[in-house]
């Protein structure tokens, strides 16, 4: 290959890479609202969530070549974010991890709320209206983090079990068991708050 042909092919390669990079950054930025929504519930505060999202995008933009085009970019970004969150030591540990978890059945919340309505036979929306937005936010924040991470990814982030397993680097069976237990803990917390309200 002549020198000028090789220079042309090198410039073409550089131009293609620049386009791929721009495309990657645009696609990643389009997902930022969704990434923030998950981050906000993984982190203890709004400031922590904002730092976490900013660091995630800094790292993602630096290591964009590691992303395989066509794969789930949102899951890739969340993988970076959860790793950063763990590296930060999850600063605020709101709930001791050693607490024994009072397991209640899946229908615990419904049964409890229904029992406390006057006619004992309310529809779902009327029962749910007894939970304030703040009480829901607090009830979720009080779920121990291993369980909360899975609930946030699957129920808030709407990730599949498989994506959540990949993001958290845990087996899919662990995702399912933590989800099962975590949702029960969440409902127990909600029931306590609804009754306390």
């Amino acid at each position: 290959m002549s020198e000028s042909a090789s220079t042309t092919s090198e410039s073409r390669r550089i131009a293609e890479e620049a386009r791929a990079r721009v495309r990657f950054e645009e696609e990643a930025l389009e997902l930022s609202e969704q990434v923030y929504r998950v981050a906000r519930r993984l982190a203890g505060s709004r400031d922590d969530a904002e730092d976490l999202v900013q660091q995630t995008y800094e790292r993602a933009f630096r290591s964009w070549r590691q992303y395989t085009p066509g794969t789930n970019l949102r899951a890739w970004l969340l993988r970076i974010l959860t790793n950063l969150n763990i590296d930060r030591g999850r600063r605020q540990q709101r709930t001791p991890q050693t607490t024994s978890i009072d397991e209640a059945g899946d229908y615990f919340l419904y049964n409890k709320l229904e029992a406390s309505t006057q006619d004992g036979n309310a529809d779902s929306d009327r029962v749910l209206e007894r939970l304030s937005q703040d009480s829901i936010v607090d009830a979720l924040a009080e779920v121990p983090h291993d369980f909360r991470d899975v609930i946030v990814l699957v129920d808030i982030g709407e990730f599949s079990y498989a994506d959540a397993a990949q993001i958290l680097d845990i087996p899919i069976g662990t995702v399912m068991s933590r989800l099962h237990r975590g949702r029960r803990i969440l409902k127990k917390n909600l029931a306590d708050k609804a009754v306390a309200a």
Partner: protein
Amino acid sequence: MSECEKCEEMMQPFLDGALSTDEVAEAERHLERCSWCAKRYRFEERLRHYVRVAVSEPMSPELKEKLAALRTPLT
């Protein structure tokens, strides 16, 4: 295990879309017959939506700007 107990066990994977076609059909057959379980399924479905909406907080415009500023400048 009673049919209602089995139905309770299937509820979370049912709502996650993680059951097989046969299991979905089995759960739906029971829900058609059993208003006690049907009411609880409806509640759980609504609860998930309610929680998702309640804990969703929009990103601040400042953060959005900061993220946009991280982009590689076009040369």
